[in-house]
């Protein structure tokens, strides 16, 4: 293998990959928690909170995620200087805003998909409204969320590359900077272009992470339905 390969691979795996995994992990946990709370609240028939949550969902599902990233990264500091975040944090915040809107919509659907008989049976057994939700409806509904949450994880991992647009060093940005370094003349680089190999390597990495997860999501979907 040529000499240039080893340091490039090492930088991508040691600097880029951990950043991608960290942003993805934080975003998927944050998005799931906020999304499940919002989605559950949405099923409660209280007009004001429903209008607000509906608006939140429609806005963050409607915006291209890159625009949300720009809003967090460029927009928030323009409103208040204390709201300045690094590229990776800003990307996580944007992914949480987008992801939680997706999860809220999925949660609403899952709760709505529990048959009415379950409510009636629980009421007949003497459960109050809160007991009915907590012990009968929500446990079943949240189980149905598992496949969409795995799907969300795949989407979040892929969309964490948006950090590269604002200079956050994750997989894609690490690959890009190494690919650019190689094109420079020695001693920094070798004066050669190897973008196909390096970006190809990043594609393979993403594929190896995503493919098992999409299979898992499909499998869970079949099992839980």
């Amino acid at each position, binding site marked *: 293998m040529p000499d240039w390969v080893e340091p490039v691979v090492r930088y991508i795996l040691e600097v880029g990959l951990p950043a991608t995994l960290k942003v993805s992990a934080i975003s998927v946990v944050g998005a799931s928690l906020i999304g499940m709370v919002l989605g559950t609240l949405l099923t409660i028939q209280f007009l004001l909170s429903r209008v607000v949550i509906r608006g939140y969902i*429609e*806005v963050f599902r*409607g*915006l*291209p*995620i*890159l*625009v949300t990233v*720009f*809003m967090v990264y*460029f*927009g928030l500091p*323009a*409103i208040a200087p204390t709201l300045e975040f690094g590229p990776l944090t800003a990307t996580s915040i944007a992914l949480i805003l987008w992801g939680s809107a997706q999860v809220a919509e999925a949660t609403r659907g899952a709760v709505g998909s529990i048959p009415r008989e379950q409510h009636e049976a629980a009421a007949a057994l003497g459960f109050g409204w809160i007991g009915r939700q907590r012990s009968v409806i929500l446990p079943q509904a949240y189980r149905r969320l598992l496949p969409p949450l795995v799907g969300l994880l*795949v989407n979040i991992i*892929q*969309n964490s*590359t*948006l950090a*590269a*647009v604002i200079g956050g060093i994750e997989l*894609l940005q690490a690959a*890009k900077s190494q*690919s650019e370094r190689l094109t420079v003349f020695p001693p920094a680089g070798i004066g050669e*272009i*190897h*973008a*196909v190999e390096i*970006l*190809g390597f*990043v*594609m393979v990495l*993403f*594929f190896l992470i*995503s*493919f098992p997860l*999409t299979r898992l999501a499909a499998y869970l979907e079949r099992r839980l339905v």
Partner: protein
Amino acid sequence: MLAVYDLGAFVSENWRELLDGFENTIKVSAIAVVGASLVGLVLGAARAHRIPVVSQLAAVYVEVIRNTPILVQIFMVYFALPQIGIRLDAFTAAWVAVTIWGGAFNTENFRAGFEAVPQRYREAGLALGFSPFTTFLNVTLPIGGRISLPSSINTYISVVKNTSLMYVIGYPELTTTAINIANLTLETLEALTVLGIVYLTLVWSLSAAIRLLEARLALPESR
């Protein structure tokens, strides 16, 4: 803040450029929607009818595109292909990248739609003397196409949103245009407001139009 927030002034000073950017967004989206429909139709039919070799290659194409970030795909098309002698200008790279992406998702949408058409309908078509191809055109396509409509339309909306990623290759669609203006004039919040309003209006009206269309095109039994 350096200046007072003034959306009206921002728009009146830059509307010509913003409109050009919006037109480019629509242009790339329109080409990609048509392209992704053709790709999805042909490969989705090949997948559903298990046409040897084509079906397997289409499956690989779908899995590769769905399991890698579109941003990496865009980088590949614009920054890596020149290494092997394929040089695309930003506009071509933009519509090629989103067409490849949308085509993969649409292949899956159409495959599912075509496979949902009951086998007996096709058998009836063949029994009436239609060739396999005309059976596809007259039976599988009109029914399966309508079944796959909701999911393929979601793909089209994603295609429109993904054109914003062309910012990374400097193609002057709406996002690139607005951010470039903001970089010059420091009117960041105004630029972001314009982006938010335009994209939400576009996406929301597409979804609304689609719900109407869906109701009209839905199969009679599912009405």
